[in-house]
């Protein structure tokens, strides 16, 4: 049994606060801090003013393979891999730093809610570590993209070199375009 240390505990609380502010769910907090569930729930309520969301985490790898999420997941994973390789950090520190960098990147493109949440990003890293997902280089641009480890990825062309025909044409995008044209008219 490890000895109780006040300094260690304060570090853990700091980490938990950072993760909660970035939008982590309770499962992530439990996995990466040594604080008890009760204390984490208390902390969450204090910071967010509401109870943490209940229920299971999304557990399907398919989400990461659809068009827009795939691009965002690929951005995050590339940043994360870069940090692992070049900055000498790992674990949850690398995930949070990569996630912050990803958020800044995503902000440039739109000021809406980011596609990838911290919990999703963490799930993505776990999927890659357990060999369910992997990165594959696109034969057209040589960029590394998230793909299913068991798909046939021999002649892989990424979602950005070869954009699917209906990609990005959501109801939301249509409404935004109509709004913009109404404003300019």
């Amino acid at each position, binding site marked *: 049994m490890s000895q109780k240390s006040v300094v260690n505990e304060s570090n853990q609380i700091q980490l938990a606060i950072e993760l909660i502010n970035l939008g982590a769910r309770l499962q992530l907090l439990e996995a990466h801090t040594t604080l008890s569930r009760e204390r984490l729930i208390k902390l969450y309520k204090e910071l967010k003013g509401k109870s943490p969301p209940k229920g299971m985490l999304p557990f399907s790898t398919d989400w990461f393979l659809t068009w827009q999420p795939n*691009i965002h997941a690929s*951005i995050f994973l*590339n940043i994360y891999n870069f940090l692992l390789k070049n*900055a000498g950090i790992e674990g949850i520190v690398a995930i949070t730093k990569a996630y912050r960098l990803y958020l800044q990147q995503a902000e440039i*493109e739109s000021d809406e809610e980011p596609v990838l949440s911290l919990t999703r990003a963490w799930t993505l890293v776990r999927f890659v570590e357990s060999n369910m997902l992997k990165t594959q280089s696109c034969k057209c*641009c*040589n960029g590394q993209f998230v793909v299913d480890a068991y798909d046939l990825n021999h002649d892989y062309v990424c979602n950005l070199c070869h954009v699917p025909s209906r990609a990005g044409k959501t109801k939301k995008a249509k409404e935004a375009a109509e709004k913009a044209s109404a404003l300019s008219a």
Partner: protein
Amino acid sequence: MTDSDMMMEIRDANLNYLMLAQQMIRADKATAIFRLGISKEIAELLEGLSNAQLIKLAVSNMMLARFRFEDSTILGMLTKYNKDKAISHATILMAGQPVEGFV
């Protein structure tokens, strides 16, 4: 622009670059390594330089910061085709590039 003007501009740019890089590294080393695209060794070296050393390094007739787009695909992507997703694409490709480091 005369030659001496150009030298002055280069010196200014060098000093600006070095000071900004040092600040970034001191604030958050890992993030700075990503943003600058340099290796950890170079980051640590820059972090420890004194102001006098920075100025000495900046006074040169060559630019200290090098162009990061060695691959023409990335550069073409950022400048030529004007799609919404160009920035995402470039980010993915740039993060995949090797860092500038000691050989």
